[in-house]
């Protein structure tokens, strides 16, 4: 009888543990592909060495909308020609600026089209509340793309928005985010 009991319990536990390990460790590796930014943008060089502020590149427009990632128009002021010795800067100048081609930056928190996220409504929050602290990184973090949904692993889920809204007393009505 005891033998029969171990025949049941032990395999159950093995299956349980194996499943949990695979589910938490293996599943994400299968689900997400890893991507790097088209150009290794060194924030540290710009922020510390050139004393640039976040708003110099990530600015609000006159109408309050958020410009998001900078375009070549922002960068050519300095990078019309190669300035330093960073090979990625040289590649940016030759492959993008000179070819009049925009860099397809990967947005870590890009929301679906059915969500209207207003940056100016959240301007009191620190950027790093939602975004990785890239200002202190010389190499942008790896971008994990969900193979099924196509979104970044770091794209905020609706429950996270709702939780913050609830805690801060902001409305959670549908039309606040879904226009």
């Amino acid at each position, binding site marked *: 009888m005891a033998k029969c009991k171990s025949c*049941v319990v032990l395999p159950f536990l093995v299956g349980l543990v194996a499943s949990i390990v695979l589910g938490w460790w293996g599943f994400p590796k299968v689900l997400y592909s890893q991507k790097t930014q088209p150009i290794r943008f060194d924030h540290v060089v710009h922020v510390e060495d050139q004393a640039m502020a976040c708003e110099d590149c990530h600015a609000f427009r006159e109408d309050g909308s958020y410009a998001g990632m900078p375009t070549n128009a922002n960068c050519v002021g300095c990078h019309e020609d190669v300035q330093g010795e960073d090979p990625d800067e040289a590649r940016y100048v030759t492959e993008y600026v000179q070819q009049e081609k925009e860099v397809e930056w990967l947005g870590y928190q890009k929301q679906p089209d059915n969500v209207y996220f207003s940056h100016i409504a959240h301007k009191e929050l620190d950027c790093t509340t939602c975004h990785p602290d890239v200002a202190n990184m010389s190499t942008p973090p790896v971008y994990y793309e969900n193979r099924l949904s196509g979104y970044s692993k770091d794209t905020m889920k609706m429950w996270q928005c709702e939780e913050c809204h609830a805690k801060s007393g902001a409305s959670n009505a549908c039309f606040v985010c879904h226009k």
Partner: protein
Amino acid sequence: MGLDRRSFISLVAGGVTGSLFTPVIWKTLDDVSIWTQNWSWIPRLNYGEELKVPALCKLGSDAYGITVKTVAGRPVVAEGNPDHPLSLGGICPLGAASVHLLYSPSRVKNPKLKDGSSFKDITWDEAEELLVGKIKEAGASVAMISGDETGSVTDVLSGLVGKAGSDKSFLMPGESAPAVAALAMLGGDGKVGYDIENANYVLMLGADALGSWGNVARNGKAFSASREKGVKFVYVGPAQNGTSAVADSWIPCLPGTEPVLALGLAAVIADKGRDRSFWPGFAAFAKFVQTSYPLDKVAEITGVPAATIAGLALELMRAGRPLVLTAAVAGQGLGAFELAAGMSLNMLLGQINTVGGVRILPWAPKVVEAAADTKTLLASDLVAYLSAVADGGAEAPALLMVYGANPAYALPNLAKVQAAMDKAGFVVSFSSFMDETAAMADLIMPDSYAFERLDDAYSPYGSGQPNYTVAAAVIKPVFDTRPTGDVLLAVAAKAELDLGFESFEDVVKAKAEALGADFDELVGGAAWISEEFPVQDLALWQTPLQELVAPISDGKSLALAPALQLKIGSAKIAIPPFNTNAIRFNEMLGTDMYVLINAATAKNLGLKKDDVVKLASAGGECKARVRIFEGVMNDTVVAPMGFGHTAWDAFSRGKGDNVYKLLAADTEAQTGLSRFATARVTVTKA
């Protein structure tokens, strides 16, 4: 220890249980649901800076300034331009659909050459070389048709034709030509405008001013402002429409008899109004209208009770600044003498070249020396010319060039128009869309769409003051198209016909300079406006007075009242895909359009709701279904214009029938010009 059946089941059970404590199932379910929202055919938003860019809309009955909202440089929606004098923030149904037409399936995406019954794609170099060769071959046997009377591209095209030695430059018919001719009968010389904003009584004789006539957006704003000012708007027409629905009153009047009503009103005003015997021409005019148009006779012809006519005349006389707008219900085809009948009312009321009245606007400056001036273009009768070509009375042109117009669809005597085009040696269409004319053409050199090129407009018909608008391109051409103005200048240069300009921008700059306007400010969206009106000596009538030929009821046929609704399209544009949802259940059943008759007329004809009928006139036949509508006069049938396209795209092709087929032009006795505002039609079960 082997893995027996029991152990295996236990292992699997453990695995399944464990998976419930991992994200595998829950995350997969969530991601699959998101995956279904992101299939490749689902449109995606294009994020970027939102701007409002000034632009021009020429799709409807007039040209006026609008704004185009762009996101990341891509047009997304058109809106009225509050700063433009002909928009004042308003927009017409075609303007509202204008951005979507950029990507219309009927856009001609590149130059095309007729190859048997279809087209083959060619390059721009090949197309230009071909046209240069045809111009050289044709010599002076060249003609042009333009649907844009306000823009300088027409000047360039007319200049090319003129430089080749031909005077065959024509505009598509509209309200402007008869209005200018009517003004000339009173001794005036210039474009015709209406100061509708400052009038304190507006009588719309057939003019669907709030739906499709004149500066529609501006008219609507003036009407809106008039509500607080107590200005009365009276609509006279054969059937209820959008204008009659909101006007202070609607006076039913048989189709095509509005000019008779005008002369009847003139007779009353000449009799009862203040003494005008010292006016040049007044005595002869008063005698003519009082003899030829007594109240009873006018009431019989028009169907308007005599008491109503007398009351209307009284209201006009009492109003301080009355304004009479005379037009065909369909927005074209009225004879010049007929329009002059309405214009004479303004004259009698002292409302020409004054605040709140008819305004005489100076002609546009001529910058392309070889081009026909606007006055000459408006006096050239396209309908008569094409009919003569078809009948053999005029030589068919070796080269016919068509810009901004669709004559193969939107002219009376349609069979003759198509025959004339068949007779032409070589037809070139500059259409942005595969319209009926482009489909018949030998060569299509697609014009860049309105928002993809520089364009201008000088004082569209009806403007209250001289104005000039220039709009730069909002977006680079979406397809392999080129601005016709520049193509024509390049072709002219290759054909050694020097028009004096290297680029179309230079033409527009020259026009701006001639007007004293700043080109850069114009491109920035500020329309040039002038308050200078030419002072002219007018006499009540300058031409021999003859009675109007009023439509006569024969007891068998009905009077046709063509109805133009911009949501369905215009003479230039077919139903925009965006507007198909605006066509209501009572306007179309399946692919059949409805024509409207009232119950009494239906009973006389033995017809009932939804019957399929054939409408036949001297011009041709149309198929439709019957809808009973009591907002139509007896013995009158209202037929919608804009349906019955045979080219374009699936959104407009094969829907309803083309009412232009029913319109047969005749020659106005007083002026010798074509008129085709209405027709007599028989309506029988199909």
